[in-house]
């Protein structure tokens, strides 16, 4: 039959891509604004790289968290797990027992253990993710302090070398006041961020698992009917977020060189905020992993701008709050404008487990 496939107009942008685009645009605008206001610091490439260098752990955690959130879950234990890993590594290295490889194994191991335990309880025993990951947070914090109350500075030579290791970009840099050319440095943490970003973004876009996560987050009941193993998918998302928390922990200590009780405290809330800004909806089913670093960077750039403007550190949080408010309202408005037809996406399973499924469409009588 002629003309049936001649769809008028271009294919509409998907929700995930739209929110990501908005996040990206806002980030670019923000950065341009920063460059204009503070060319001294922001025009330098090093500033941009430092955003990654100093905040790699947060970006890594946000990546894992995004995956969980896209599936419709939540994980608030990641900050504490990250902190625990830093102390565990520091303890391990300083005790003379082990090598850097051992530390890496410990980081991954701790992350995986938390991920598996939490994932099982949430996906298979169907317990609320909020409570389970909250308990995970308590447990990680407790183990952290039990392990060692005071900061441990890692002085193992191999590690110190790793900590001070920089990848120097000779052709990019700035001249300081004395006229000496200082090339840009990228710390290994940034490389790890880049690698993880590529791996995880590819996973979400091109793997069966990644698409299953989107399906489960979009409508878990439908996903089940379509033949997807919902429980296994959700379980795996939590394992991934545990893993990224572990990796973030190792990167953290690789950058700061010390295990400290306060490490990554509160990071989970920052990660949630970053994920939301980056275009991942708490409802699930919508999100783009590339948005995770964008969201984090936006958060950080704004903070930098505020700091540079002379606002005291105590007020920075307030402005972060305002920014978050702006994003949340913006997202709500956009999503409701798009969904005129009212085909509502279900509330995230961890907020509304009513078996009647009250988020379902109103059937015509």
């Amino acid at each position, binding site marked *: *039959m002629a003309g*049936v*496939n001649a*769809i008028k107009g271009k*294919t*509409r942008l*998907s*929700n*995930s891509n739209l929110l990501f685009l908005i996040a990206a645009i806002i980030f670019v605008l923000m950065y341009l604004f920063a460059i204009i206001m503070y060319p001294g610091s922001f025009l330098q490439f090093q500033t941009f790289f430092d955003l990654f260098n100093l905040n790699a752990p947060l970006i890594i955690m946000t990546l894992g968290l995004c995956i969980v959130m896209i599936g419709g879950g939540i994980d608030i234990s990641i900050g504490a797990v990250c902190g625990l890993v830093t102390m565990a590594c520091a303890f391990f290295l300083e005790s003379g027992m082990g090598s850097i490889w051992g530390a890496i194994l410990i980081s991954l191991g701790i992350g995986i253990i938390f991920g598996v335990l939490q994932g099982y309880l949430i996906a298979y025993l169907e317990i609320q993710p909020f409570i389970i990951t909250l308990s995970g947070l308590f447990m990680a914090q407790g183990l952290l302090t039990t392990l060692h109350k005071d900061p441990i500075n890692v002085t193992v030579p191999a590690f110190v070398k790793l900590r001070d290791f920089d990848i120097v970009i000779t052709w990019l840099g700035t001249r300081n006041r004395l006229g000496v050319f200082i090339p840009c440095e990228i710390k290994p943490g940034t490389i790890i961020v880049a690698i993880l970003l590529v791996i995880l973004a590819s996973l979400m*876009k*091109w*793997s*069966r*698992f*990644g*698409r*299953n996560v*989107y*399906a489960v*987050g*979009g*409508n878990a*009941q*439908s*996903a089940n*009917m*379509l*033949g*997807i193993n919902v429980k296994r998918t959700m379980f795996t998302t939590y394992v991934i977020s545990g893993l990224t928390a572990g990796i973030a922990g190792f990167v953290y200590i690789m950058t700061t060189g010390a295990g400290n009780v306060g490490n990554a405290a509160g990071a989970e809330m920052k990660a949630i905020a970053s994920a939301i800004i980056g275009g991942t909806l708490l409802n699930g*089913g*919508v999100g783009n992993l590339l948005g995770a670093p964008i969201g984090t960077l936006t958060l950080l750039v704004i903070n930098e701008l505020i700091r540079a403007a002379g606002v005291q550190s105590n007020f920075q949080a307030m402005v972060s709050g305002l920014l978050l408010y702006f994003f949340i309202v913006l997202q709500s408005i956009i999503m409701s404008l*798009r*969904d005129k*037809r009212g*085909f509502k*996406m279900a509330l995230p399973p961890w907020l509304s487990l009513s078996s*009647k499924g*009250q988020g*379902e*469409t109103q*059937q*015509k*009588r």
Partner: protein
Amino acid sequence: MLGNTILEMRGISKSFPGVKALDSVDFTLRSGEIHALMGENGAGKSTLIKVIAGAYEKDSGSITLEGAPIHFKAPQEAQNNGIGTVYQEIMLCPNLTVAENMYIGRSHSPIVNWKQMNEQGQRLLASLNIPARATQELSSCSLAVQQMIAIARAVDMDCKILILDEPTSSLDEDEVHTLFELMRELKGRGVGIIFITHFLEQVYEISDRITVLRNGKLVGEYETIALPQIELISKMLGNELDDITGLKKYEPDVSDASIPVFEAIGLSSVAGVRPFDFTIQKGEVNGFAGLLGSGRSESARAIFTADRTTGGEVRMKGKRVKIKTPLNAIQHGIGYLPEDRKGDGIIEDLSVRDNIILTLQVLNGFFKPFSLKQAQEFAEEYIERLNIKTPTADTPIKSLSGGNQQKVILARWLLTHPEYLILDEPTRGIDVGTKVEIQKLVIALAHEGMSVTFISSEIDEMLRTCSRLIVMKDREIVGELRGSQLTESAVMNVIAKGGKK
């Protein structure tokens, strides 16, 4: 071309707590046929197809697929055996693309080949003439197209049997046409299609055979060509064995000049009701007759503003009033027993007592709660009056049977002493004894001066209790019957002949 029998079901029974959904039903399907499954709400159609699709396990009976006996324990099993189901609630993921929805969950390859999937998907869409792009996000497609995509998925999975549950409810004429082309194409390929619908014309346009269910029992299986429409309607709404004798309905003493208790002029709502006029006198019982989808419920909901009204005015006892929310309606003395008892009626975790006093409490105001003693008195009064079977007034309402739950909701409204009470399918899904009780109650209420609108799929119930019947079809009023005109055949005639087609 009709082929051999591919599905044979014999003596299928299925019960749920409190209700027997299927009572020894037989059903056969041939390859290459479109077989319509018909019946009013509560007839058992949905339950039957869920048994076929493996979502429910039958209590008794046998099912053979292509000669071999089958016993599915999960929907996956049915799917793997070539039974594709497209439910009325579209079981797809709105945030994925069209192509993804068609292929997800089917392949075992860990990597998604987008290019291949999109190309294959586009070909599939083209072969079935579905107006969509494989790369579109599903939520950007209309519901009609989404339905077709769900069908495409089933078809692509080489189904031998395709079950379509109310596929045309949300489609316009052109979309229905496209869907039917698709169905004929599949029929030509030898697929056996079970088609559930309440649209009579569509049944006659496309189906080869019709099976009619009523109250969980099989009424009969017929060749479509051999069954005139009026007979079909009669089979769907026909008589039911019950022991109502000597029930005399109340004919209100009305002259044309008396002011109606309630009057609606040009009322329309967001639920797609065409602007209609409606009046009801004091002590009158009127009914809305029509098949499923005729717009009866929507009209009732519009009166109560359960759906937001978009136009028209209403008058109570001659005076123009502003009714914009259910609370307004309640305050003006209108009550509404909803069709969807579970979704709109009962507050399942609350006690019987709380469910009974709910609306009166709201009427009383936020700052005037009833004391426990008072609430208990109210509850006990109506538990007794309506003969509600419950262990205590404290029992959560979800523990009660359907019939008793319905009585609780009735009690809730009666407690508010409304002037005008709308009952939408009050007898659906409940036992015969309770049905009789409710009909008797309606007549008694009319005697006491209450105006009642009684909507039921069982025409005889309405004929027994109503002094006036408004007949609806395809969302508009096509006739009104009174007095001696109130016979089943008259109603069915109006339904069959009424409307544009």
